[in-house]
């Protein structure tokens, strides 16, 4: 249910960019009507009550037996995932995750749908600079939420007239590199922008380089090591440490490789959870407190 609320936050911007938005499940219409009213959902929540569309896509969850969770309509649910379609209904991109709890944040979906860099939340930004290099680190969302994939963006500013080598450069050059670390985080692969090709005729070499502002993006989530479903959050924020190493060069010579780091203090927030989860956790904890034994 969290992702439906996350998508509402970007629904208008998707529409303004000519993109319609639909969410499909096997929930009955009455359930969708109640949920939409309670959570202010204005885009289309579509009811595939007999799972006919889910089956036609070939994505019905086969791990649930027909007699399991009948009252909850477990049988017939889809493997959760998102399709990006062009105006002819042709898939241009899709986003599926093996773990059912993992999904992209609204801001991440928006950037992917529009094929453009994420916009940073104004309150979750940090900067760092030395004499030559500066960078801005920020998050696509106002907070990290359990298993919601946000985008960490790193803008590295290279002074005019200088360039940094890109990954894939000949081995004599030190290419731009970035590391991201933090406790309880799951950090994906860095997405690099396209590099320019620098033709160094006197060396008989062509090398990929970056100049001016380079945008690097990294998928990032907080895991249940830190935030747990059904529980209050014990830490208000996590530190994400971003370090960039770069060797800046002009057409004639190169400086020494240098390193720049920033620590982004990132707020944590709870998911919009179904009330049942909270009740379940409270009951289990109460029984355990009473009996002194672990419920399993």
């Amino acid at each position, binding site marked *: *249910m969290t*992702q*439906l609320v996350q*998508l509402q936050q970007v629904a208008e911007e998707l529409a303004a960019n*000519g*993109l*319609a*938005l*639909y*969410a*499909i*499940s096997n*929930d009955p*219409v009455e*359930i*969708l*009507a109640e*949920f*939409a009213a309670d959570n202010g*959902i204005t885009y*289309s*929540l*579509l*009811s595939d009550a007999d799972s006919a*569309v*889910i089956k*036609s896509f*070939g*994505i019905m*969850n*086969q*791990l*649930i*037996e027909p007699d399991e969770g009948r009252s*909850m309509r477990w049988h017939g*649910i*889809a*493997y959760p*995932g*998102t*399709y*990006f*379609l062009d*105006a002819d*209904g*042709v*898939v241009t991109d*899709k986003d599926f995750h*093996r*773990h*059912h709890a993992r999904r992209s944040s609204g801001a991440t*979906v928006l950037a992917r*749908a529009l094929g453009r860099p994420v916009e940073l939340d104004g309150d979750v930004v940090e900067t760092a600079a030395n004499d030559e290099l500066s960078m801005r680190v920020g998050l696509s969302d106002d907070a990290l939420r359990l298993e919601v994939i946000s985008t960490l963006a790193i803008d590295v500013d290279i002074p005019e007239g200088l360039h940094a080598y890109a990954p894939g450069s000949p081995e004599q050059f030190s290419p731009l590199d970035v590391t991201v670390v933090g406790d309880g985080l799951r950090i994906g692969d860095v997405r690099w922008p396209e590099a320019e090709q620098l033709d160094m005729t006197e060396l008989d070499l062509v090398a990929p380089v970056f100049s001016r502002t380079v945008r690097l993006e990294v998928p990032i989530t907080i*895991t*249940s090591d830190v935030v747990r479903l*059904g529980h209050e959050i014990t830490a208000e924020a996590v530190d994400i440490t971003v370090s960039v190493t770069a060797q800046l060069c002009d057409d004639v010579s190169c400086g020494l490789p240098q390193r720049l780091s920033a620590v982004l203090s990132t707020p944590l927030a709870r998911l919009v959870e*179904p009330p049942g989860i909270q009740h379940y*956790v409270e009951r*289990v904890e109460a029984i*355990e407190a009473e009996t002194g034994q672990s419920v399993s």
Partner: protein
Amino acid sequence: MAEAAGYYDEFGFYSPQPTDRATRRQPGEDHPTGPEVGTRVPAIELTDQSGSLVNVQSTLGAAGGVVMFHRSAYW
């Protein structure tokens, strides 16, 4: 802090409910993800939250659309 009640799945994901519960079973790495990039999706005509019939293919925007399949609005 005492260890909270709960369960951990193969991804290290904490769950307040048993991980063998039907909705917490994990598919394999090759689980189906439906139509591939570059192909047309099957026709979609379904009732929305207001009771209106919506045909996705005929209501896509000028640039297309985003179709998200989720497990349930309620749990």
